[in-house]
C-alpha cells in the first residue's frame, strides 16, 4: 500500500499565496468570482398572446439576464432592486435615429454617422433612454444624395465619460433622394448615379490593374530568369577576358591613349545596352488613384455594404429601384410613403425591405407625400419585410411604433419595437414571442403593461447590469 503524502504547511501556504496573487492580478477572474448578481424580484412579463405572466424573478450576471422565472434560486450576496409591480421587456431598438446629430450634415460616403455622434449631449441621450430606447442605428443626414454611412450604437454610459458605445460603424450606406423640390431631387438622383458609374469604372479599372499587375509580376519573374542566365554567360566570358588582360598589361603604357578611347566606347555601348534592356523589360502598370469615397461605393457594388435609400414620393421610389437594378444591389427603402402607388415595381426587387416612419400629415393639401392607411397590409401581401424607425431623436420611437401598429391593426407593437435591425422577413401579424429572453443585456421596466396600456412608460432602464436611468420621483428636472 502506497503511503499517503499529506501537503506540508509550507506547500499549503504556497498554494494560498499563489491563489491570492492570482486574484489580485487578474481583474476578470476577480470579477467573475466576486461580482454580485443583480436580482429583480416581483416583475411581470407581458406575453405575446396579450396575457401577463405571474410575478417572476430576473437574475442579471455580468450584464446579462441569466435567469427568468418564478422559482429562481437567488444567488448569495446578490444586489436586489425593488421593482415589484413593474413590467419587464428587452430594450427598444430604433433603426432610424438622428440622435445628437443636430445640424451635422454630410455629403460624402466616407463620413459615418458615428463621426457626428455627440456622446456628451447627455440631455438628448438620456431623453431617448427614458423613452425606452437602448440601441439605435444612427443615420447621417445631408443636403441629399449620398450622405454617409449608418452606424449602430448602444446607448450605454462610457467609462471615459458620456454615452454611446459603437457596435458597428458600417451598417449601411445611406442615400437620401427625398431632399428639396422635384427638380432638385432629379439632380440629386443624377449625381448619385454618376457616383456609382464612376465607382463601376473604378471597379473595372481595378480589375484591369490586378490583371496587369499579375502579368507584370510574371513578366518580371521571366525577365529575372533571363537576366540570371545572361549573367552566367557573361561571367564565363569575363574569366576568359581576365586571362587575356594579364598578358596585355605589359603593353599598357604604350597604348594608354588607345585604351582611353576604347573605354569611352565601351561605356557608351553599355549605356545603350541598358537603355535597350529597359525598353524591352516589363512595364509596371499604374495603380488607379486613391479615392476613399469610391472605395466605399465599391463595397456596395461588391455586395459587402448594404444600402439604405430614403425616398417617399412615388417618382423617387422608382428612381431608387432603377438605381438598385442598374447597379445590382438590394436595398432598404426608408420612408416609402407612396410605396402603394408603385407596388408592382417594388414587387420584383430582390433584397428589398422597407423602413417606415410616421409621416407628419398636414391639412394643407399637396404639402406631403400620400400614405395609404393600408400600406403595411399591401407590403405584407407582396412579401416585403418592413420595420419602423423614429426618423428623429428616438424619443418618439415608441409612439411611432404604436401609431403605425395601430394603422396596420397589429396588436403586438412590442414585437416591432424590440426586433433586431431590419431587414428581417419576420413581420407577421401575431407572430410575437415573449419580449425578454435569457442573454439580453438591455432591460426596460415599465409602469403599466406596454402591450396593452397606452399610458405605460419606462420607470427604469438597465443596460449591462447597470441602472442607467430611473424615473425621478417628481418630473421636475433641472432648475429655472
Amino acid at each position, binding site marked *: 500500500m502506497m503511503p499517503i503524502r499529506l501537503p506540508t504547511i509550507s506547500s499549503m501556504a504556497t498554494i494560498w499565496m499563489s491563489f491570492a496573487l492570482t486574484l489580485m492580478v487578474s481583474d476578470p477572474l476577480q470579477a467573475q468570482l466576486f461580482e454580485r448578481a443583480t436580482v429583480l424580484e416581483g416583475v411581470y412579463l407581458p406575453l405575446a398572446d396579450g396575457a401577463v405572466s405571474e410575478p417572476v424573478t430576473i437574475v442579471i450576471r455580468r450584464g446579462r439576464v441569466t435567469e427568468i422565472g418564478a422559482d429562481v434560486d437567488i444567488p448569495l450576496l446578490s444586489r436586489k432592486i425593488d421593482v415589484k409591480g413593474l413590467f419587464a421587456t428587452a430594450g427598444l431598438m430604433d433603426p432610424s435615429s438622428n440622435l445628437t446629430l443636430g445640424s451635422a450634415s454630410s455629403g460624402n460616403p466616407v463620413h459615418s454617422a458615428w463621426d457626428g455622434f455627440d456622446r456628451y449631449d447627455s440631455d438628448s441621450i438620456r431623453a431617448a433612454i427614458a423613452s425606452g430606447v437602448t440601441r439605435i442605428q444612427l443615420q447621417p443626414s445631408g443636403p441629399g444624395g449620398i450622405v454617409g454611412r449608418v452606424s449602430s450604437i448602444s446607448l450605454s454610459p462610457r467609462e471615459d465619460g458620456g454615452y454611446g458605445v459603437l457596435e458597428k460603424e458600417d451598417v449601411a450606406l445611406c442615400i437620401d433622394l427625398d431632399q428639396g423640390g422635384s427638380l432638385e431631387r432629379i439632380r440629386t438622383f443624377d449625381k448619385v448615379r454618376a457616383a456609382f458609374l464612376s465607382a463601376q469604372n473604378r471597379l473595372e479599372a481595378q480589375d484591369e490593374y490586378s490583371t496587369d499587375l499579375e502579368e507584370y509580376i510574371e513578366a518580371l519573374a521571366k525577365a529575372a530568369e533571363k537576366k540570371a542566365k545572361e549573367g552566367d554567360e557573361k561571367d564565363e566570358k569575363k574569366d576568359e577576358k581576365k586571362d587575356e588582360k594579364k598578358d596585355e598589361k605589359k603593353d599598357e603604357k604604350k597604348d594608354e591613349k588607345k585604351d582611353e578611347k576604347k573605354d569611352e566606347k565601351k561605356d557608351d555601348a553599355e549605356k545603350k545596352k541598358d537603355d535597350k534592356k529597359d525598353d524591352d523589360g516589363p512595364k509596371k502598370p499604374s495603380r488607379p488613384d486613391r479615392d476613399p469615397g469610391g472605395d466605399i461605393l465599391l463595397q456596395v457594388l461588391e455586395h459587402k455594404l448594404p444600402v439604405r435609400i430614403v425616398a417617399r414620393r412615388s417618382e423617387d421610389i422608382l428612381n431608387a429601384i432603377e438605381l438598385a437594378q442598374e447597379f445590382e444591389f438590394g436595398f432598404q427603402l426608408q420612408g416609402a410613403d407612396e410605396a402603394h402607388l408603385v407596388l408592382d415595381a417594388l414587387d420584383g426587387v430582390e433584397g428589398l425591405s422597407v423602413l417606415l416612419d410616421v409621416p407628419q400629415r*398636414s391639412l394643407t393639401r399637396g404639402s406631403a407625400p400620400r400614405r395609404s392607411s393600408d400600406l403595411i397590409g399591401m407590403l405584407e401581401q407582396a412579401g416585403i419585410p418592413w420595420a419602423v424607425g423614429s426618423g428623429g431623436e428616438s424619443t418618439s420611437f415608441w409612439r411611432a411604433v404604436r401609431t403605425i*401598429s395601430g394603422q396596420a391593426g397589429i396588436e403586438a407593437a412590442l414585437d416591432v419595437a424590440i426586433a433586431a435591425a431590419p431587414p428581417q422577413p419576420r413581420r407577421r401579424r401575431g407572430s410575437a414571442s415573449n419580449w425578454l429572453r435569457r442573454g439580453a443585456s438591455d432591460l426596460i421596466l415599465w409602469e403599466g403593461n406596454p402591450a396593452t396600456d397606452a399610458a405605460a412608460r419606462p420607470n427604469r432602464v438597465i443596460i449591462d447590469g447597470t441602472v442607467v436611468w430611473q424615473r425621478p420621483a*417628481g418630473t421636475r428636472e433641472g*432648475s429655472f
Partner: protein
Amino acid sequence: MRSIRNLLLLLLMTCVSASSGAAALHPGGDSVISGVGVVAPDGSICQGMAVVVSAEGRIVAVIPADQTDPAMVQMTAPEGSVITPGLHDLLGSLGATGELTAGTVLIDSELRAAAAFDPTDPRLEDAARHGILHTTIAARPTGLLNGTTATFLCKSGGRGEQLAEGMPYYALAETALDSSREPTSRAAMVAMWKDWLANSDKSEQIPGILYCPDAIDLRQSLEVGWSELPVMVHSGDARSPVDRLAGREAMLIVGPFPEGGDSAPVRTAVWAAQVGVELAFSGGLPAAPADHLRTSAAIAVAAGLDADAARRALFSNPARACGATEIGVIEPGARADLVLFSADPLDPAATVIQVWRGGERMRVAAPGVVSDLEVPE
C-alpha cells in the same frame, strides 16, 4: 374604484335627467351607440357604456350597455373602442381667414374673432375626419385686450355654427409692445396692467384668456393683481412661477408639443398639473400635423402627466377655457359632437372610426370606389 365612482356619477346624471323629463328616451327618435368606453368629464374612461343621442343632436343619457333597448341601437362599437367628445383646436387658426389683429388700439373690446371665420374652408372638413370637431380662433395678441375669441363647429359649408360667444383675449407679452404707441417697454406694459386692474370698472374685468407665453410673462402676470385668475396661455418653461398657481383653480393652455421639440415646456406643463393646475392643449391647425393634439397629449403622458389629466386637457378643459358649455363633455344635454376611437385616444395606435357632429354621422374614410359612396336616404 375610480371607474365605479364614475359609473355611479354617470348613472346619477342619467337619473337626474330622466326625472326632470327633459331627456327622456324617445323610441324612434333617439339612437344609441352601444358597447363603448366613454370618456367621463373627469377624464377617466368608463367601460361598457352606451350613449343615447336624441334626434335633435343632443346627448340624452349615458347608461350601462346592458340596459339599452336593442331596437334603438344604431351602432354597436368594436371591442376596446372609446367614445369621446370632439377634439378642440384651441387658439390655432383653423377656419380663420387672413390675419386678425387689434391694430393700434391697445384695449379693444369690440374686436370679434368670429368675423374672421370662413365656413367655406375645406380644411374644417379634413380636421373633422381626424376627430377635431371644434375650433377656437382669436386675434393676434398685439394689444392688452384683443377682443373676444370665437368657437365654431368644424364643418364646411353653410353659415358656420358658432358654439360660444367667446372670452376676452388679453396679452402680457412682447407681442403687445409697439414703438408707435404705448407701451413701448415691458415696465410700461406691466404698469398699465396694474393700473387697469386697480382702477377700471370691475365689471369690465372678465377673467378671459391671457396670452403670456414666456416665463417672464407668466411671472409678471401673477404680480399685476388679478382678483380672479384668467386662463393663461403659456408655451414656455416657467417652472418656478407655476408653483404659485397651486391651489388657485388655475388653468394653463400649453403646447403644442411637437415630436423632437424642446422638453422643458413639457416638463413645466407636467409639473403644473402635479401641483393642481388644470391643463388644456393648444391647437396649431392648419399648419401643424392633423393629429398634433393627440401627439401633444401622448408626449405629456410619456413625460409623467396623469392619463385622466391628459384627457381633460384634450376634451373638457379647452371647452371650459373658451366658455363653451355645451361641448367637451359627454353628459345629458351636451351637443352630440362625438368621436369613436378604436382605443384610448391617448394611445397613438388609436384611429378614428366614426364621427358625429350634432348627432349627425359623417364619413371618415374617403370613398375609394363608386359603390363606397354614401347615398342619402
